[in-house]
């Protein structure tokens, strides 16, 4: 049995039960991702020593007057976007895997990414004159349209996790076919641009994008975290969840909503970064076990760390050529995925 720390105010009706291990893991991951952010900010045409970065982050003047500007205006947003997007994808994946009891479920395969991708590629290829600022809202709409269609189609008197996944695979195929159409007939230069977007990259993101992304995370992350108890129950099956007093359809609807909103806002900001939503929950489960109370935040931190480190690798490996961080995560994802497939087979 795990050691739990329980905080319960005298006479209070609310108690907080905390797994100390999750707290420690979370703190360690937070440190690692902070280190990742600092390293990411330091690397570039104009290298900055780590200490100066930390000083600049806290607004302290140091060795070079330019540091503050470079760190806070030019480079920090990119690193922060990486962390936020990774966290959003990871939480989205954790929810989907919890709901469907399927280790391989992730926003990548239920069509949310494909819908966002289709919308973005259509915009880039068919309307090249439209400003790039419209890309995130378009991608977001694409993801939401697919998600709503998915839920409507999967609904037959009640929702079913299995149907959700399978129909998601089908919708993903439709969106991918239309994307292929765009790629086949578009101007080659625009198609190239669209592909970079499709792979997922945090290149050139600014504070503006962070302020658009942040509200979604602020609303839906806590929504997911607070419903962890219901996610635990639903993970045991609909009957058990009903028996434990969860309003199954309502809770599942809310959790799916949170998952979709997080994935959609992440994809809208940084494109379809592959496999973070699949891998991060598994790594987090290894670290803190399957109870979603600790799993969701740890998974978020894992995802953030993964993307920021992937971006670091992508920027430094073949510098000055930059590899989009989506490629790095895909390459790391390959062996991991085969391992998962192997494990799924055995059980």
């Amino acid at each position, binding site marked *: 049995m795990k050691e739990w720390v329980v905080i319960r105010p005298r006479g209070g009706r609310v108690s907080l039960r905390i797994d100390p291990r999750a707290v420690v893991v979370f703190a360690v991951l937070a440190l690692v991702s902070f280190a990742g952010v600092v390293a990411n900010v330091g690397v570039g045409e104009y290298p900055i020593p780590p200490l100066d970065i930390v000083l600049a982050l806290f607004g302290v003047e140091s060795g070079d007057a330019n540091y503050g500007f470079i760190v806070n205006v030019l480079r920090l947003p990119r690193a922060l976007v990486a962390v936020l997007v990774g966290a959003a994808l990871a939480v989205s994946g954790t929810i989907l895997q919890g709901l469907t009891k399927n280790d391989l479920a992730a926003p990548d395969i239920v069509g949310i990414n494909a819908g966002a991708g289709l919308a973005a590629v259509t915009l880039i290829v068919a309307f090249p004159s439209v400003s790039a600022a419209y890309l995130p809202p378009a991608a977001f709409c694409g993801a939401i349209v697919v998600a709503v269609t998915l839920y409507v189609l999967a609904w037959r008197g009640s929702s079913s996790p*299995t149907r959700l996944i399978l129909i998601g695979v089908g919708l993903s*195929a439709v969106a991918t076919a239309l994307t292929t*159409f765009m*790629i086949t007939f578009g101007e080659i230069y625009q198609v190239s641009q669209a*592909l970079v977007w499709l*792979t997922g990259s945090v290149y050139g993101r600014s504070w503006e994008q962070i302020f658009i992304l942040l509200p979604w995370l602020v609303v839906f992350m806590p929504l997911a975290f607070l419903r962890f108890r219901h996610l635990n129950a639903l993970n045991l099956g609909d009957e058990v969840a009903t028996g434990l007093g969860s309003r199954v359809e309502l809770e599942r609807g809310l959790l799916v909503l949170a998952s979709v909103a997080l994935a959609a806002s992440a994809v809208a900001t940084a494109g379809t970064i592959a496999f973070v939503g699949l891998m991060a929950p598994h790594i987090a489960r290894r670290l803190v076990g399957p109870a979603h109370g600790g799993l969701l935040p740890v998974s978020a931190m894992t995802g953030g760390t993964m993307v920021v480190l992937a971006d670091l690798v992508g920027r430094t490996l073949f510098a000055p050529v930059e590899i*989009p961080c989506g490629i790095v995560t895909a390459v790391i994802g390959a062996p991991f995925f*085969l391992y998962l*497939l192997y494990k799924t087979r055995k059980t």
Partner: protein
Amino acid sequence: MRVLRSRTALLFGLLVAAGLLFVCLLASVRFGAARIGTWDVISAFIDYGGSEDDLIIRTLRVPRALVAALVGASLAVAGAVIQGVTRNPLSDPGILGIEAGAALAVVASVFILGASSLTTYALFAFVGAAAAAVVVYGLGTLGGVMTPMTLVVAGAALASLLSSLTTAVLIFNQRTLEEIRFWLAGSVAGRDLELLIQVLPYLSVGLLLAFALGRQITALTLGEDVATGLGQRTAWVRFLSIATVVLLAGGAVAVAGPIGFVGLVVPHVAHFFVGVDYRWILPYSALLGAVLLVSADIAARLVLRPQELPVGIMTALVGAPFFIYLARQRVKG
């Protein structure tokens, strides 16, 4: 559920399907970007004069129609075999990531080795398809049967992984992208007889093997235990089935690029007509698959005339909704 009840009806149905295929092939030769009259089509065969129209008919349209028919038949039979052996109504070579494997191999060959002919593409497509098939299908069947859900999700995840790697390669090289993008969408345009003859051995061996396995696959669909009880060496049958799928799907993708959903839809149609016996499902699938792809190819040529749509997009737009329909119907809980 089966429409054709007696053996005579089944044989007659097969004849009708063959007739339908013949009509489709003729239509495929008749319609296209260049408008050629019916009479000119006939004269290209009986009275070859070497005119431009004759050339178009003989060197472009006839090979193309034959390629479409053969690829359609192979994909459909491959799909039927997978569906039977995995007892999973929702699988086909596209959904399980086999075609994505072929695509990645071809893109890599263009990028790394500078491959530029359809023949080279074919070779690499074959290798890639085989590798992906062994991974997903082998994992799905060798160590106990996966549930349909697990297998489909595994395949979908594999496909999405492979295609993100494909995109990664394409980003770095615009030339590769330019060369390969039409192939990647799946198309039978511009395939000549030479290419067809190269893969013909694989496809015909695959088809024969599949037809020969009909009885064994029927037994397997009743469950591992029943098949073993009937005296079948199931591991051996499964192995031969994997080999069949690799030959058929690999060969088909090698010629035409990744064309999805033919293998998913057609076996269900065949099942509707002939019931559960794979000795009939497989030949019906072959003929109906050929009919489907040839007519999809005709449609792909006509909708955007004079541009043409890659037939792979056409089949996905028809097939994916069918997949969704199946998932809605079959998955209860």
